[in-house]
């Protein structure tokens, strides 16, 4: 198309917006945008807001109740405790968006980690750890494909298929590891994920990369919209977004760059030096996967079709979408990211036994729901799973600091889950939706 044609359409659409016929929700200044946002929230489209609010409230509560909560050491601790939940919740979002579920995500991680430790254990097969890591990730892909086959091809409800695997894989783990067996993780690289930190400058570099990516995509997006001749949101919003990343991210990195403590125990041994400072390595890994996944969900056909199938599978099929293939891919991604979560857990606790991953999956599902992902499918984002997981993790962390044990922890976590689901349901009814969907 020539320049003049574009110019013409640009004029057309501005005239259109001015005449108030069909807008795109991008017009107006900051105030208009803010008003539209508030209206969306009041209409039941609350997104991640309740989870963020819950997180802040819990943090304030624990900060008041425990002097240890608001320390930089505990802050780093919280992040590493949350990392496995965050990754698992993000994994599950991919299948929950389809309206499916993967109850075997935890034991999938267990099986893959069992294979990893058996293969890489220096006293046994002693395979190169990178090769073992790749093989265990591929185990995740294979398990996902297996689930996808039964769900998408054969047509068995995913609840049933993955419940079967949940039981079966516990047996498989026992067979691989041996009853009562326990393998210590011996690869320093795997242990480093949760126990080592970026150098001080690395944290700032991470923040700079985040700002660059966020600003860069904003510029590219706006350029595309200008080329198409449709209005852009006011540029102030971009600056606000970058400002928020800069301030929150800056505080975050600055806090983690403080020296926190002299000793760091791992399985009874002192690891690391006297100085512990920097952003835990698990953080940039998680952020990178969060970014890549969100990019895929928001900007590529695969992501759009995932939402479409979750919203109305028949509509998706009639639009020519290959529903089976998309489902297959979603289960593959879910199981693979579940294995990544398994590596985080293994790195944190330093060992793998036959019950590895058995208990974690329902926390992952709970995290996704608390974050605002709909179990009916079609609604939710990866960041929702991540924030929900932070909420779940902060409950465990804070109650632990208050010396309240597992009993209270489970009760509170369950209560928060039901509360979150209620907030979601009520907000949607107020927004005109029905209670069941």
């Amino acid at each position, binding site marked *: 198309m020539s320049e003049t044609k574009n110019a013409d359409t640009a004029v057309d659409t501005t005239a259109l917006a001015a005449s108030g016929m*069909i807008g795109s929700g991008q017009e107006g200044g900051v105030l208009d945008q803010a008003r539209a946002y508030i209206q969306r929230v009041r209409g039941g489209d609350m997104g991640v807001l309740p989870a963020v609010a819950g997180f802040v409230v819990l943090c304030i509560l624990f900060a008041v109740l425990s002097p240890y909560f608001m320390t930089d050491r505990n802050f780093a601790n919280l992040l590493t405790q949350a990392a496995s939940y965050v990754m698992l919740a993000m994994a599950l979002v991919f299948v929950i968006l389809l309206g499916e579920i993967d109850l075997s995500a935890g034991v999938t991680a267990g099986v893959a980690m069992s294979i990893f430790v058996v293969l890489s254990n220096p006293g046994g097969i002693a395979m190169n750890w990178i090769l073992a890591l790749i093989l265990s990730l591929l185990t995740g892909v294979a398990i996902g494909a297996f689930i996808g086959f039964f769900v998408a091809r054969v047509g068995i409800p995913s609840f049933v298929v993955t419940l079967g695997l949940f039981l079966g894989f516990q047996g498989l783990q026992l067979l691989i590891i041996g009853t009562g067996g326990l393998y210590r993780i011996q690869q320093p690289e795997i242990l480093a994920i949760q126990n080592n930190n970026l150098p001080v400058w690395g944290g700032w570099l991470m923040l700079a990369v985040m700002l660059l990516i966020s600003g860069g995509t904003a510029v590219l997006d706006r350029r*595309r919209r*200008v080329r*198409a001749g449709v209005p852009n949101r006011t540029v102030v919003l971009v600056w606000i977004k970058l400002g928020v990343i800069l301030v929150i991210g800056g505080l975050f990195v600055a806090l983690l760059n403080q020296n926190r403590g002299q000793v760091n125990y791992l399985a009874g041994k002192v690891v690391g030096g006297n100085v512990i400072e920097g952003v835990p390595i698990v953080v940039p890994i998680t952020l990178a996967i969060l970014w890549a996944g969100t990019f895929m969900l928001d900007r590529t056909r695969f992501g759009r079709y995932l939402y*479409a199938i979750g*919203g*109305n599978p028949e509509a998706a099929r009639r*639009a020519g979408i290959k529903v089976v293939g998309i489902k297959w891919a979603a289960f593959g991604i879910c199981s693979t990211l579940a294995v990544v979560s398994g590596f985080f857990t293994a790195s944190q606790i330093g060992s793998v036994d036959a019950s590895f991953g058995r208990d974690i999956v329902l926390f992952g599902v709970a995290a996704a729901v608390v974050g605002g992902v709909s179990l009916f499918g079609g609604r939710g984002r990866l960041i929702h799973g991540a924030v929900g997981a932070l909420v779940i993790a902060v409950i465990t962390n804070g109650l632990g600091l208050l010396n309240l044990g597992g009993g209270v922890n489970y009760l509170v976590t369950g209560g928060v889950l039901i509360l979150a689901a209620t907030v979601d349901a009520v907000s949607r009814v107020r927004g*005109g939706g029905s209670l069941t969907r």
Partner: protein
Amino acid sequence: MDEPIIELSDIKKSFGPVSVLKGVSLKAYPGKITALVGDNGAGKSTLIKGLAGVQPYDSGVVNFNGTPVHLTNPREASALGIEVVYQDLALCDNLDIVQNMFLGREETSFGTFDEGEMERQASETLQSLSVRTVKSVRQRVSSLSGGQRQTVAIARSVLKSAKVVILDEPTAALGVAQTEQVLNLVKRLADQGVAVIMISHNLVDVFQVADYISVLYLGQMVAEIQTKDTTSDDVVGYITGSKTYTGVSA
């Protein structure tokens, strides 16, 4: 008489022992509205699903612009410019108007969505159909009324220069004002040169907009007539089988 853009002849389709279409013929002309009427179970939906490529026919000839074509999946039909707007709307509630209109055929550059381009085309299409009831093309479909949804579904069908648009009961669930809106939209569609095939149970609607009426009765096409040559009573007779069409096929 114009050349029909779609001409079906001797179409047969059965599900197991049940024969649903027993040698059906149908014509649709560019710029004209052909109403397809018939009682429940007459085979209207089955006939349409075959044209859409969703459920291929067992046998018979489909001529598109005079050349025989085989429609075995929705993409082939779509590539020819045959679009279907289904009764249950086939929209995704959780997506917005633009996303729904482009579902399955998104504009991309470098593998990622060109949202601006899609947004422009969507609002241009809605404008060309003189749609005034939609506030923003970025509204979620879940927030739209029945008439607005039907509007979006129809706009989706003409987005990519459709030649034939098939509407499955476009006014079934709508109130009076919204029915009027949608029927006007259907007329504008035909004014743009699109061949419209409209399934309807509502003979008032049919007589208001249709140029031709085709009546299916128990899997057979019992009448293909010009609207101006017939009356509502006659058509009811053909639909229920109490009357036999004796005139020349239109």
